[in-house]
């Protein structure tokens, strides 16, 4: 027998080890979003595949534009030297390097419809070349746009007209995307060396970059006050994930401490307390290991299970302890056998309810449901087998009747009539409140992030002082190859044009001119060869027209790029680093599928429903994904509604079946359901009065409250059976344990109310309120309801009870 135990322990240890070896925690905010939504798919594709998502944006501000420029250059060089970054872009990547700009221009021409490139080549022929350059000169002489004059003064063939006409470039013509108008505020884009995106990588990297900045700052040759801020996707992911982790760990530790603290206050026994804490930690450890084995990577939000599980697992220990105290003459085994049915049925029912949450669309909530479900079963088993035998000799008999203060005795002896008066009064008040005002449903996504975000503040400063970098509406078009994407992009563009005409969109930008067109490139290859042959004549004609030789560098590099392109087989993409940086902003590759990113601007008069409808049409006709945080909110409303049907209905059915199996009595099943409903009614009223709203995160409170409500109602009703309807005795034993559990769990969740993550804070508040309400209803009202029910049904259960 002993050998068998050793083997079981050995296998369990190996299992635990395997589970922990597999343990990975996912803290990315994007993975908190529900699956199966086009909006979310779009956001995730965007997050994974476009260069800007891998970049930190560092902003610098001083009072002096020169100092800001000097500091920006110095920091860029320092970061490059540090080896922390693969690339730092702090001014236009084409600045001071005509070769890079020329390649992009040459590429744009090479990508044009063949007849357009052919027309350009014809303008370079002997009879027309002087006229072509003369026209540029005349434009320079008469243009009213200094920028156009400056551009043409280095471009005798006006090749750059193509770039100037591109919508994506023209929209911000003349503005510096790296500096504010007065130059006192500048930004730089810093790319990670490690391209694997993720919370842990980003957190380490952002911390190292911050350290480097802190070390570099004193080395500046001036001491002007300077503000440096960090934002960009890695900063957001790092900040959100860190606050989430901290909040969840604090909640778990807080709940454990509260359980221990309250146990000490009530029972003042060290050994049982130590055993309780040790077994709770063991339950958590086993559950995390099993969860890791079952689910693989665990979502950070699902780790919120720890606080929930500890609250529920402590119930079993406290009920056992209280029962043992109440019957000091009984052996631990006898007490356990007496309480076991109520604990096992409660565990089974509550776990069943939590397993049903696995049907939710929210990945964090799904995992949380499974983890709590598994954990409850583990907890029931461990507490029943290991708790009482270990502490039996240390339990102080319950002689509390004399020691209890009068008011506690009074409360515990609350009569049936008083309980019914309270029930009716509470129901009337709650209904009155809810008729006047229901709690709002906030389906926005701001609850996913911290309440106060330094990364968001930095981004808002950039948007205010430089512009751009917003996240209004995006479009991703994907395809098997460049040609497929180009074809779909054209179809999508036609739909977007119609939407602009219909005033649904104010405008849009798609990199149509920059995206490679394989068919056009193939046909332009010969035109490029013809153009390259004309370079000496072009140079001679330009000099004759008045251009300095050194002002022809751009033209020469463009011709060199055409030469290279015409010798390249297959599809041509620009190869210079500057061009690559630009292309990463709108071109991506997701597991072999090519992606292109566009930006949409909703018309001021448009409504979310219209935009959703447009997104649906684009998806149906071209497979394009329209997404954005604003539309996500709208989409989440549908998901929340769908989840309520998909999770709560099956959960209700399973609960009914399990409660039926546990009680084998319709009246008691009904009382459990009534306890849940009444708790929810009271919670909704408190939320309405306090101005709280339901949101994406605090909907998790519902399953918890269902679980706890069912749990408490089973314990109380089984106790009512055991004590043949003696309400005061039930309250002093099981009721006391439930109040203790409820108080400790609520206090743990209450500590989440101070969390920096807005969603978790609201979850903490709602859970704390809900747990307190549920435990109070279960302990003080449910026994009276039960008694009345049994009287109406001729005391059958009381008579049948052992």
């Amino acid at each position, binding site marked *: 027998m002993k050998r068998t135990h050793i083997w079981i322990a050995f296998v369990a240890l190996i299992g635990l080890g395997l589970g922990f070896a597999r343990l990975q925690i996912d803290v990315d905010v994007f993975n908190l979003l529900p699956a199966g939504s086009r909006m979310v798919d779009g956001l995730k594709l965007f997050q994974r595949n476009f260069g800007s998502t891998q970049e930190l944006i560092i902003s610098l501000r001083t009072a002096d*534009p020169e100092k800001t420029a000097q500091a920006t250059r110095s920091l860029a060089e320092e970061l490059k030297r540090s080896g922390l970054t693969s690339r730092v872009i702090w001014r236009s990547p084409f600045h001071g390097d005509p070769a890079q700009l020329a390649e992009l221009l040459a590429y744009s021409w090479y990508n044009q419809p063949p007849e357009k490139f052919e027309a350009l080549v014809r303008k370079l022929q002997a009879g027309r070349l002087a006229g072509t350059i003369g026209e540029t*000169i*005349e*434009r*320079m*002489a*008469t*243009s*009213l*746009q*200094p*920028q156009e*004059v*400056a551009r043409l*003064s*280095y471009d005798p063939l006006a090749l750059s007209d193509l770039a100037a006409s591109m*919508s994506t470039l*023209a*929209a911000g*013509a*003349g*503005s*510096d995307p790296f500096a*504010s*108008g*007065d*130059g*006192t505020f500048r930004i730089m884009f810093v790319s990670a060396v490690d391209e694997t995106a993720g919370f842990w990588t980003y957190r380490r990297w952002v911390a190292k970059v911050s350290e480097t900045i802190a070390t570099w700052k004193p080395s500046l040759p001036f001491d002007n006050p300077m503000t440096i801020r960090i934002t960009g996707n890695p900063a957001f992911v790092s900040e959100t994930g860190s606050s989430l982790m901290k909040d969840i760990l604090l909640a778990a530790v807080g709940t454990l401490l509260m359980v221990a603290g309250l146990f000490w206050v009530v029972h003042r026994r060290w050994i049982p307390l130590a055993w309780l804490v040790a077994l709770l930690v063991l339950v958590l450890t086993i559950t995390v290991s099993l969860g890791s084995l079952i689910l693989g990577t665990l979502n950070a939000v699902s780790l919120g299970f720890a606080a929930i599980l500890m609250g529920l697992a402590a119930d079993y220990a406290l009920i056992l302890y209280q029962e043992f105290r109440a019957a000091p003459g009984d052996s631990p085994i006898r007490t356990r056998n007496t309480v076991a049915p109520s604990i096992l049925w409660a565990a089974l029912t509550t776990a069943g309810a939590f397993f049903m949450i696995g049907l939710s669309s929210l990945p964090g909530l799904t995992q949380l449901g499974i983890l709590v479900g598994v954990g409850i079963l583990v907890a029931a088993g461990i507490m029943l087998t290991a708790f009482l035998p270990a502490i039996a000799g240390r339990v102080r008999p319950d002689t509390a009747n004399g020691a209890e203060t009068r008011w506690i005795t009074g409360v515990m002896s609350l009569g049936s009539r008083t309980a019914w008066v309270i029930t009716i009064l509470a129901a009337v008040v709650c209904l009155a409140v809810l008729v006047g005002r229901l709690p709002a449903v906030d389906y926005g996504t701001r609850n996913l992030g911290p309440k106060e975000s330094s990364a968001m503040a930095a981004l808002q400063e950039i948007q205010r002082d430089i512009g751009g970098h917003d996240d209004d509406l995006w479009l991703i078009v994907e395809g098997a190859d460049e040609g497929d994407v180009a074809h779909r992009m054209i179809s999508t563009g036609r739909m977007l044009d119609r939407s*602009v005409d219909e005033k649904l969109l*104010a*405008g*849009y*930008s*798609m990199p149509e001119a920059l995206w490679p067109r394989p068919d056009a490139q193939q046909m332009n290859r010969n035109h490029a060869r013809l153009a390259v042959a004309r370079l000496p004549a072009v140079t001679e004609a330009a000099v004759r027209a*008045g*251009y*300095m030789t*050194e*002002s022809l560098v751009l033209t020469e590099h463009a011709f060199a790029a055409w030469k290279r392109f015409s010798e390249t087989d297959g599809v041509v993409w620009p190869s210079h680093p500057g061009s690559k940086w630009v292309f990463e902003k709108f071109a991506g590759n997701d597991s072999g599928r090519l992606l292109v990113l566009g930006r949409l*601007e909703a018309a001021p008069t448009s409504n979310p429903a219209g935009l959703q409808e447009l997104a649906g049409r684009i998806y149906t006709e071209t497979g394009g994904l329209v997404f954005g945080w604003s539309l996500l909110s709208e989409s989440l409303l549908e998901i929340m509604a769908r989840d309520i049907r998909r999770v709560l209905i099956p959960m209700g059915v399973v609960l009914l079946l399990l409660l039926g199996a546990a009680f084998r009595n319709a009246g008691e099943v009904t009382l459990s359901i009534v306890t849940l409903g009444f708790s929810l009614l009271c919670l909704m009223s408190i939320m309405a009065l306090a101005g709280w709203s339901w949101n994406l995160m605090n909907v998790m409170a519902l399953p918890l409250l269902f679980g706890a409500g069912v749990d408490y109602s089973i314990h109380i009703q089984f106790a009512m059976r055991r004590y043949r309807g003696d309400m005061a005795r039930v309250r002093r034993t099981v009721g006391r344990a439930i109040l203790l559990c409820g108080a400790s769990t609520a206090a743990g969740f209450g500590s989440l109310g101070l969390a920096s993550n807005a969603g978790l804070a609201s979850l903490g508040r709602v859970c704390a309120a809900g747990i307190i309400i549920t435990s109070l209803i279960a302990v003080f009202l449910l026994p009276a309801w039960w008694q009345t029910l049994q009287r109406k049904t001729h005391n059958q259960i009381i008579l049948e009870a052992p």
Partner: protein
Amino acid sequence: MNRLTTRTGVSSGRGLLSIGILCLLLGLPLRSIAADSRAAGALDNWLEQQSRIKTWTADVVQVRKLKSLARPLEARGKVWFAHPNRFRWVMGDPPRTIAVRTREQLLVIYPRFKRVEQYPIGDVSNPAWKQVLALLEVGFPSDADAFRERYELLSGTKDHEAWRFELQPIEKEAQRLLKQVRLEVSLEAYVLRATELVFPDGSIMRNQFSRHRLNPEVSPGTFDYDIGEDYKVVQPLRSK
């Protein structure tokens, strides 16, 4: 040329001496104080004169000196102005570029390409647009206070036929687009003779005005433009 800065209004006297010592200690150029006040007075006179203009027309020769070109570029045209801020510039013969400030917008018309660019007057945040407006409006300030808020007088010199003012945009943001503005104003009548804009890259655009007519009859249609049906109208400040 008689540089005003050679004259000084400082006489002997203990009070003035102490001011002089103070100025020396603080590094202030004593001589320029009086000179600048004369120039500033002249500039004020011109601004006052401009505010009295109801309409004004002139021929213009636009000369552009660009670093990348071996010789300057020259274009001829005509300018119409009406108080407070309506104007029409026609450059080239036949016209290549026409700029008309209507009530609601600035139209830049390229007749040869049958293309019209529309810039809403309300939106002056775009730097390129600011540059275009500065180029067209700098010589026609209708509000002296607004002009002083935008430009700082660096120096003013006078010869036998004209005042020459060197000004600098006050806002740092504007300085990044326009380094300096030079104005040439006739001595007696304070009539604008030329404007010169110096850009940060060193290129210069000079508008030399001639055949001025002060307050002539100008048809109201001058400051409008009937866009032909075959013209393509674009709004460069809007995304697609």
